[in-house]
């Protein structure tokens, strides 16, 4: 999760140049999405409890959670934009900036580390053309990050591409794997 300055830093995700467009903001919670959120609210005694699911809906619809979307989500659930931002920034899976069309997360925590996950990361950086962690490739297709334990340690190295969960990835398998994500 992201927090204040730390001695170890962390993988930063770069801001894409098109991060903030001048076009007017189009609300997420209308029509079917609003109906889905309303149905969800019945599961919880408070509106606030629907915040994480609501943010997932935003990311599903827009690919990331923009400041405008944070404000809208807050409005819908009766929370301030600042509160929503506080929550968004705590969790690693909400994108606070646009990312590549295919978001690649490679597990490098100890169990994968002892099985050679570092080489899997290198292969992804090479074959996606990203070159660096957290940087979106020039063609906008890929962003690669290292992720902490994906919980599939026996099948090193697990990799997530968008919401697909792929087990037992080796450096050799990377070029073939990427063909499915053009």
């Amino acid at each position, binding site marked *: *999760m992201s927090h204040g300055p730390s001695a170890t830093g962390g993988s930063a995700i770069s801001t894409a140049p098109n991060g903030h467009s001048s076009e007017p903001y189009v609300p997420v919670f209308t029509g079917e999405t609003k109906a889905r959120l309303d149905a969800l609210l019945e*599961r919880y*005694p408070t509106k606030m409890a629907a915040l994480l699911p609501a943010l997932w809906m935003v990311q599903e619809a827009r690919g990331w959670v923009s400041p405008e979307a944070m404000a809208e989500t807050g409005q819908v659930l009766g929370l301030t934009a600042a509160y929503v931002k506080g929550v968004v920034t705590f969790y690693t899976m909400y994108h606070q900036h646009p990312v590549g069309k295919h978001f690649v997360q490679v597990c490098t925590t*100890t*169990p994968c580390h*002892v099985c050679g996950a570092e080489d899997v990361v290198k292969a992804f950086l090479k074959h996606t053309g990203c070159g660096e962690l957290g940087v979106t490739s020039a063609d906008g297709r890929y962003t690669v990050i290292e992720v902490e334990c994906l*919980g599939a340690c026996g099948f*090193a190295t697990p990799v*997530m591409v968008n919401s697909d969960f792929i087990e037992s990835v080796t450096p050799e398998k990377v070029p073939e794997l990427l063909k499915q994500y053009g």
Partner: protein
Amino acid sequence: MGFPFTPHPRETTVLSKHFGDAEARTLDGWKARGGYRALEQALGMDPLAIQAVVKDSGLRGRGGAGFPTGLKWSFMKLGDGKPHYLCCNADESEPGTFKDREIMRWTPHALIEGCAIAAHAIGAETAYIYIRGEFTEPLDVMERACEEARRAGVIGKNAMGSGKRVDVWVHKGAGAYICGEETALMNSLEGKRGNPRIKPPFPAAAGLFGMPTTINNVETLAAVPPILVNGGEWYKKMSRPDNPKSTGTKLWSVCGNVMRPGNYEVEMGFPFKEFLYDLCGGPPKGRKFKAVIPGGSSVPIITMEEADRALMDYEGMVAVGTMLGSAGCIVMDDAQSIPRQVARLARFYAHESCAQCTQCREGTAWTTKILERMVAGDGTAEDFDTLMSLAEDMTGKTICVLSDSCAAPVVSGLQKFRGEFEALITRRTVHTVPAIVA
């Protein structure tokens, strides 16, 4: 061999019996395999009677702490007029652990059944299954299974025609190891930052939405239906004769440098040496085992001498200076540098610290910085004392045990593999990998 392979003859498959069997994922398939008989039975029982069976079975929490489940349930004050909640902790994020994932992928109804029984036993009408956001497939399987059970009236406002309301909902996390800590999980479920809460109040007094709450791990809840059907005596028998404190079967996730990684289910008290060599197939060809972290990354590292005499239950692991934890077994062979792996673990904790407590925020970060400097060949003799003093400040002084968990592998690594750390300082060289022995 453990799942995803055919079970080894020495495994006892209670929870993993239907792993790999796609039909068991459906409601009809689950019922055909004896599913929901336990729930039907439970809904006709007094909550205290269910608690008594679970207490008698000796079932202990499978998430890491090993707290007796029946006792935990008995802390819920029945009939106090307040809404009660059950939270199922499916935030499985402890490095080395991947057992709950298979339970949810293959036997989603076992978990729903366990949740519904537990909810009834603690006087709750609502159960939330908090699943980590990265588990896309388990999330999908669990959502569909809940929907199927709801439509069939197995759960809902009149569960199995009993007149009792039991709702089970899936809640998706968003990426944070700390949300596996029970009070952080509740905050996260409430739509807050996942910061752990100061205890007391304990969840049974004031938990989710300020109401009495019980939090149980996936594996714990999945074990409840077979216990109810077969009885506490049956469960208790699965233990070593000289240790009645650990009962039943346990799923062990095995990963790292081992021939056959996977999930193995064995009875409590199984000999660890036979487990590692016979069931898991020993080290990769030409290599030797060097060290094991037996219970997920938060427990002390043990040497092979210690591992060889360990027995696989709560007390057996304590006897060799470590813990059973979540039974996520990380095996390292002689090609691995212990300082390098300890440094990588420390980095994990530094990344996952919620940063509420100074000792944790600063301690995990500085521990990582020092270890990584040592591994890079820039260590000094003073680093040992600095690391040990940081570890002391990180143990027992914070709201939750994340920083304690960072200190455990660091301290045990420094103590048991000191020579490797010293070599880094005196020779300023990184670990050299021994040649493969033919």
